[in-house]
């Protein structure tokens, strides 16, 4: 017995020693760059998704790794997180030392200027010049400049729709069933009549979902009518054309919105307990719980949501698209400071911005298995597969890199990418396009204001809090928390930026 034990102990010790030397060896090998005997490096990519994690993630990962291995001697690990999880996970990933090679910065979940000022992301200006010249050429200086902080680049914006409008989507089948005409709907007030019909005739379904607790529902309307200048604490009203930074929550627009939503909740039009629901609208559409939801709009938005939900949807636009800095630098690939091989991460960016095969694989899965390629570079689901049963179905083209190289779905307009380019050009642009707010001087105030906002905003914007009773308190709390200090700082930085131009 004793002998056996001693043998076991020796075996374990030996195994540990082996493991340790193996680890050590790997470290030194991968550090000497460019050598032919270079070890394969694994790059983990993390990003938020609207749907559940697809079943065939491993298969796609293996195929992606094949391409990456051949070109840059890397393997790829995908680490998608649901939106609600991303809200709590992303800041922790950034604050930890986890080896994440590439990560999506998604405003307002993560804040670009905080990430940069606290050194959570790598300065990749030189790495891009050295390893990814193509990316710089593809994206273009106009958009890159919106991401520069003191002339340095800390991320690359994904190429997608760079303006956002605002609207409401409704289930087409129910609209037709009850013969509702949506062509006359121009404002939120016009929606009451529609919701009333649905409430009467479809008692099992809630007429409306404003957005829930995962995100502040009014962000969508705020972003299509004002330049949020980063965090929304102090905005430029009137589509970003004004010169003075104002408190959006004091505006008539915000009051009108929360009043309306509250009245809907009083009438029972909203999904009950909306202010504590973490699900996204596409999940709720699928679960047959809601008839309509607010959303931000872009070309192809409805088609994208139809694929996500498996339902026919009708979009009614409530606000024209607006473009501002936050939308350009709001979704970027960044290289977190924990990344062990930043140069490799940047090389992968080459694939994300210039390699159509890699992009299509990442977005749509494996040809023949998860989609079939038809005419005009348009794809469709294989026969017998629906959005619900597909083993690889997510709509992340807008955050994958260069979406203009991707296929489009056959339900999309074949000219979708051309339309998107046109849309980007034609959208009204904020007067502060290119300005990035550096919030490091007012970090205390931002923490306090963030806390006040998380106390009230979700409640107001999902119709749970009565604005007549609570709005005054909200505004007073914002003042005590120091929103005026933030606004003054923003104004000063903005004035300086305007002068410098």
């Amino acid at each position, binding site marked *: 017995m004793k002998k056996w034990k001693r043998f076991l102990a020796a075996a374990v010790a030996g195994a540990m020693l082996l493991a340790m030397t193996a680890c050590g060896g790997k470290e030194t090998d991968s550090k000497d760059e460019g050598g032919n005997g270079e070890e394969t490096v694994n790059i983990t990519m993390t990003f938020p998704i609207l749907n559940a994690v697809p079943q065939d993630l491993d298969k796609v990962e293996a195929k992606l790794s094949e391409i990456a291995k051949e070109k840059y001697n890397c393997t790829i690990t995908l680490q998608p997180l649901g939106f609600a999880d991303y809200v709590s996970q992303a*800041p922790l990933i950034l*604050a930890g030392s986890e080896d994440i090679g590439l990560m999506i910065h998604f405003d307002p979940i993560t804040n670009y200027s905080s990430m940069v000022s606290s050194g*959570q992301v*790598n300065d990749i200006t030189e790495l891009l010049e050295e390893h990814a010249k193509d990316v710089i050429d593809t994206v273009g200086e106009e958009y890159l400049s919106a991401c520069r902080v003191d002339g340095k680049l800390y991320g690359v914006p994904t190429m997608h729709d760079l303006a956002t409008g605002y609207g409401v989507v409704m289930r087409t089948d129910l609209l037709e069933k009850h013969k509702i005409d949506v062509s006359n709907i121009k404002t939120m007030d016009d929606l009451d009549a529609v919701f009333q019909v649905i409430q009467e005739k479809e008692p099992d379904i809630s007429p409306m979902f404003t957005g829930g607790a995962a995100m502040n529902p009014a962000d969508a309307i705020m972003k299509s009518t004002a330049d949020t200048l980063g965090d929304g604490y102090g905005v430029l009203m009137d589509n970003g054309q004004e010169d003075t930074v104002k408190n959006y929550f004091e505006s008539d627009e915000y009051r009108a919105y929360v009043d309306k939503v509250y009245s809907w909740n009083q009438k029972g039009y909203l999904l009950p307990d909306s202010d504590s629901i973490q699900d996204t609208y596409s999940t709720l559409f699928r679960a047959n719980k809601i008839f309509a939801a607010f959303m931000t709009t872009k070309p192809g938005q409805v088609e994208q949501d139809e694929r996500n939900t498996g339902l026919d949807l009708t979009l009614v636009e409530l606000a024209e698209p607006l473009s501002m800095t936050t939308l350009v630098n709001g979704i970027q690939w960044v290289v977190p400071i924990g990344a062990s091989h930043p140069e490799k991460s940047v090389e992968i960016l080459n694939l994300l911005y210039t390699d159509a095969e890699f992009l299509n694989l990442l977005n749509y899965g494996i040809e023949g298995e998860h989609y079939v390629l038809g005419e005009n570079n348009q794809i469709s689901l294989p026969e017998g597969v629906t959005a619900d049963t597909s083993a690889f179905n997510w709509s992340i083209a807008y955050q994958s890199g260069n979406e203009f190289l991707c296929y489009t779905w056959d339900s999309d307009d074949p000219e979708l990418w051309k339309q998107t380019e046109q849309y980007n050009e034609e959208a009204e642009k904020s007067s502060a396009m290119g300005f990035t707010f550096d919030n490091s001087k007012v970090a205390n105030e931002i923490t306090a204001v*963030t806390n006040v906002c*998380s106390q009230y905003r*979700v*409640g107001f914007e999902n119709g749970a809090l009565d604005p007549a009773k609570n709005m005054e308190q909200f505004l007073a709390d914002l003042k*005590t*928390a120091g929103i005026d200090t933030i606004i003054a700082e923003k104004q000063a930085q903005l004035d300086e930026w305007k002068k410098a131009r």
Partner: protein
Amino acid sequence: MMVPGFLYFIINNYIPMAGLVIAFKNVNFAKGIWASDWVGLKNFEFLFATKDAWVITRNTILYNLAFIVIGTSFAILIAILICDMRNKKFTKLAQNIVILPSLISMVVVAVLAYAFLSTDAGVINKLLEALGMEGVNWYNTPGAWPFILVLVYLWKNAGFQCVLFIASIVGISNDYFEAARIDGATKWQQIRYITLPLIKPTIIMVVVLALGKIFYSDFGLFYQVTRDTGALYSTTNTIDTYVFRGLTKLGNVGMSSAAGFYQSIVGFVLVLVSNLAIRRSNKENALF
């Protein structure tokens, strides 16, 4: 023999204390912790910058006091009841039943609570409707939550706490009770004059240890069970949830460790003070 325990404490409790410097630094991840700039007490400012500091400190302390007072009394009550059971099989069963909730994760507890409190399908609202009353939107009624949270806390924790008391009650010699019964003491008198005085040291130990944690709130209870609903913050926001909320958005490690530091200092002082007070009145009962 002490070496493994000692090592455990050094590795897990003492070495990480070096991290306290983070509370006084403007952490820059590119420079690393040690090379980051010192900022003095600036990281602590945000805690006291608003009236939030008052609300969260009040909530944290009041809830914990309620938990200590009500929770401990309730645990003692259960312990006494369980010890007085005649049927041994039923005693075992009862013990298992009261301990079961403490094995359940707070996230699951939150879902159970939601099943009771949900506005359209909750058990309580269905009952109210059946009785002809109007349902209440619980997740929008801050006034009700101190009671709900205390109830949830009791349901979850009392069973586990009472194990300690059961152990010390079982340790009391049966002679005392027999003598008391012969002298004609009622049940209540036996509890009042025999059980309680003899388990006093245990009670004091439990309370003093709990006082040390009075500045820590059960994060799961206050974050999950309330479903992080903004409308409830006035009565459910505690230091831990406040810090979590503010800093998951900003991701500022300096500020979160400042809050952690503040919590542990106040907790440390409270343990010292309460132990001192106890030692003044009765030296034997003091912890140290």
